[in-house]
């Protein structure tokens, strides 16, 4: 009696965990995006036109590049609030250099280096001073924004060389340059996260930092590299944004950090570290881009899109928590199965000896 019931319990838990695993593989954002497409297209069919679809990619490009880096930072259980301010700094330094006569490739390269250096500085402060990443990068958010306004005396650089503007405004066929660059960055990010040591260790550090140290992973150095990579993405995003706007001003990137973090978390990367998905990040950025674009096309009030994005974010985190709870329940079920087997065996042993 006891034997059969506990066995049934075990197999039922097994079947349930199989189904749950299948469901958890489908990113719910795909469904959200499909629903958005249908709803927006019903109100305004122009939403589906190729030009508008490319427009969504173009507008999402800067966010996408930043979000690639942020996916690594958040997967490693970190956070970087300084990306918006850092973008402003990189944009202005690049712009000022090129404005002063430095060739465009060199100016952009200098900006990429500067972005990487700022990111690594974040990482060094976090690991050496052992200050919480939230605080370090919040400090940098304020510091860098102040610095760039001071340095530029709140002026802007305008009218940049054609070659740079092409990066931000050009097309190859029907595809905007920013879309090509940002999707390339996402592909590189996907490869890094899923198919390299760097990505594997980023997830591992976010999952269990102490275990990583015991297994010989240089955790601090790795974190510096992760923030450095985020910084490199900031540099690329800055180059794109300057090209698109054909100017560089100290206000660039204001509040971007919130947008980026929302997109990454919306995509399914876990704020508590250990889970990162680049495909999810791309979907997260696109979801927000579609909401923004669609709201304009259906003539909704500009502010309504913020309301929607905020609510989406809360829903996404609620879903993450739900998924986490389900995983814990699956682990408990696995333990219970083991206990059941023990019980079965004890029962059998008792039957045999009696």
């Amino acid at each position, binding site marked *: 009696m006891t034997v059969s019931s506990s066995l049934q319990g075990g197999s039922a838990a*097994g079947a349930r*965990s199989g189904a749950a*695993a299948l469901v958890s593989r489908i990113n719910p954002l795909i469904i959200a995006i499909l629903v958005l497409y249908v709803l927006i297209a019903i109100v305004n069919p122009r939403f589906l036109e190729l030009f508008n679809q490319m427009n969504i990619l173009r507008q999402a490009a800067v966010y996408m590049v930043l979000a690639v880096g942020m996916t690594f930072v958040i997967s490693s259980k970190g956070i970087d609030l300084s990306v918006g301010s850092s973008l402003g700094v990189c944009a202005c330094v690049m712009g000022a250099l090129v404005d002063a006569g430095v060739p465009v490739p060199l100016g952009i390269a200098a900006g990429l280096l500067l972005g990487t250096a700022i990111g690594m500085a974040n990482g060094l402060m976090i690991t050496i001073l052992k200050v919480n990443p939230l605080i370090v990068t919040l400090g940098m958010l304020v510091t860098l924004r102040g610095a760039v306004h001071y340095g530029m005396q709140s002026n802007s650089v305008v009218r940049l060389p054609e070659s740079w503007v092409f990066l931000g405004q050009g097309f190859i066929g029907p595809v905007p340059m920013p879309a090509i660059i940002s999707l390339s960055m996402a592909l590189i990010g996907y*490869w890094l996260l*899923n*198919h*390299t*040591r760097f990505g*594997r*260790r980023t*997830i*591992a550090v*976010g*999952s*269990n930092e*102490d*275990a*990583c*140290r*015991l*297994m*010989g*992973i240089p955790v601090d150095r790795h974190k510096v590299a992760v923030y450095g990579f985020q910084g490199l993405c900031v540099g690329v995003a800055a180059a794109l944004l300057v090209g698109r706007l054909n100017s560089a001003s100290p206000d660039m990137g204001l509040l971007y950090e919130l947008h980026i973090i929302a997109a990454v978390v919306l995509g399914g990367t876990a704020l508590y570290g*250990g*889970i990162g998905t680049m495909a999810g990040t791309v979907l997260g950025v696109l979801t927000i881009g579609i909401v923004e674009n669609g709201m304009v096309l259906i003539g909704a009030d500009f502010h309504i899109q913020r309301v929607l994005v905020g609510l989406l974010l809360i829903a996404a985190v609620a879903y993450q928590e739900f998924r986490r709870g389900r*995983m814990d329940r*699956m*682990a408990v079920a*696995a*333990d219970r*199965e*083991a*206990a059941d*087997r*023990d019980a079965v*065996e*004890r029962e059998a042993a008792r039957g045999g000896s009696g």
Partner: protein
Amino acid sequence: MAQSAAPLLEARALRKSFGAVKAVREATFDIGAAEVVAFVGDNGAGKSTVIKMLSGAHRPDDGEISFAGQSFHPRDPEDARRLGIETLYQDLALANDIDAPGNIFLGHELTTRKAGFIPWLDKARMRERARELLARIRIELPSLDQPVRLMSGGQRQAAAIARILRSEATRLIIMDEPTAALGVQETRKVLDLIGSLNEEGLSVIVVMHNLEQVFAVAHRVVVMRGGTVVGTVQTDEVTPKDVVNLIVGAEESR
């Protein structure tokens, strides 16, 4: 099988303090080649500090360790691992969001190159090796693809044990309370496993509280009390009761 010519590991007069707390006052013992030695003692007797000095987590304040005939000063656990001492941590030290092969190769990921130059994690080979290692300890996991978070305590431990065997250099395995969190069946598997690792020629240090288990697996028992090794006994020469007396210090009062 216990006493061969030269011991694999010799520890002489180890001492270790943390501030004013003398965690280990005097620890002298040796571990033979292909020998299973249990460390027993009350909580705070200094067992885990001694073990951490062997696994590279702590450096002794004083004393000497030699391993395989050489002076042994590991800088960190990775260094100890390179020299041939692996540790099964009590909390298993697993990255819970990563699957079993990923954990077995944590920090030692295998890579290959795609198209001749693009670095690429060699997940297929890690999986294959993981399967071999698990087969060697006669454990089958329900899935090698799910994060270890979703596995039972025994299965998670199997992944951690397979990881210990990854390196060919391993000659001594330290297990810190390997049965503390396990059920009856899984405990028996671990005890069997210690036996079969030993048969393969590996030495094992195991920290355990359950004397029945100690007598089931260990050739010798090192007893610690108040930071000092107070005795070393052969399990085939004494009874569990003698060991209990050593642990609580009843010997001296008699």
